[in-house]
């Protein structure tokens, strides 16, 4: 399942969606809004997430499909929020469900690493003085993706 939503989500409800007695392992990634300083050293009070929804859905579908086939997952759920989010709110959830833990853990990491550099979402920091600041892509995220090149068919 793939979902892009401006509403929050409940972990237990989403877990029920992927839960099955054919699975022996689930790996979760939950990204949340953290308190931080902006690049101009201003306090962040939240984030705003912009999305090109038609493209993001197509890109997420490809990533999910690769995860399902490469790690023989039984299910893979991806939820991403859009709009205005306060500190501490949930941004993104990935659940990889598999027979064995190694596949679930590695697939979950692949999905979130891919999402970070390949899916049409853009983050803005919301600052104390009502300014918005574009968040820049991190080199580290691109470097992390290199490790998957040899693994993914």
């Amino acid at each position, binding site marked *: 399942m793939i979902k892009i939503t401006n509403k929050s989500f409940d972990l237990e409800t989403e877990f029920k969606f992927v839960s099955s007695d054919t699975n022996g392992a689930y790996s979760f990634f939950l990204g949340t809004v953290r308190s931080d300083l902006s690049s101009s050293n201003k306090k962040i009070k939240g984030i705003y997430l912009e999305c090109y929804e038609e493209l993001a859905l197509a890109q997420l579908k490809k990533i999910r499909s690769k995860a399902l086939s490469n790690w023989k997952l039984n299910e893979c759920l991806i939820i991403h929020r859009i709009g205005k989010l306060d500190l501490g709110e949930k941004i993104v959830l990935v659940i990889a469900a598999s027979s064995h833990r190694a596949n679930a853990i590695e697939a979950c990491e692949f999905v979130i690493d891919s999402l970070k550099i390949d*899916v049409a979402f853009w983050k803005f920091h919301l600052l104390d003085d009502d300014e918005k600041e574009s968040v*820049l892509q991190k080199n580290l995220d691109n470097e992390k993706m290199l490790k998957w090149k040899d693994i993914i068919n």
Partner: protein
Amino acid sequence: MNITLKYFSWIRVKLKKSHDLIKLNQTISFKELKNNLISKDAIYQEIFEDKSVKFFLNLREIDDENQTLNNGDILAFLPPVTGG
């Protein structure tokens, strides 16, 4: 013919709009459209010179500047993504 341009992230902020509808009398290439836009507004020069910006035509990344644009096409301007 009509082509919709969609702008995202800092490009949307800089242009102060999320989209444009371009009306043309004949088909043109992506490269010709690029040159037209640059001649109308210097901001486009900055956008097209930024090698990190990607251009998607009907949800597919443009890899050939000579690609022809057709009626009803949607061309999206995408800075590096930062979701997750």
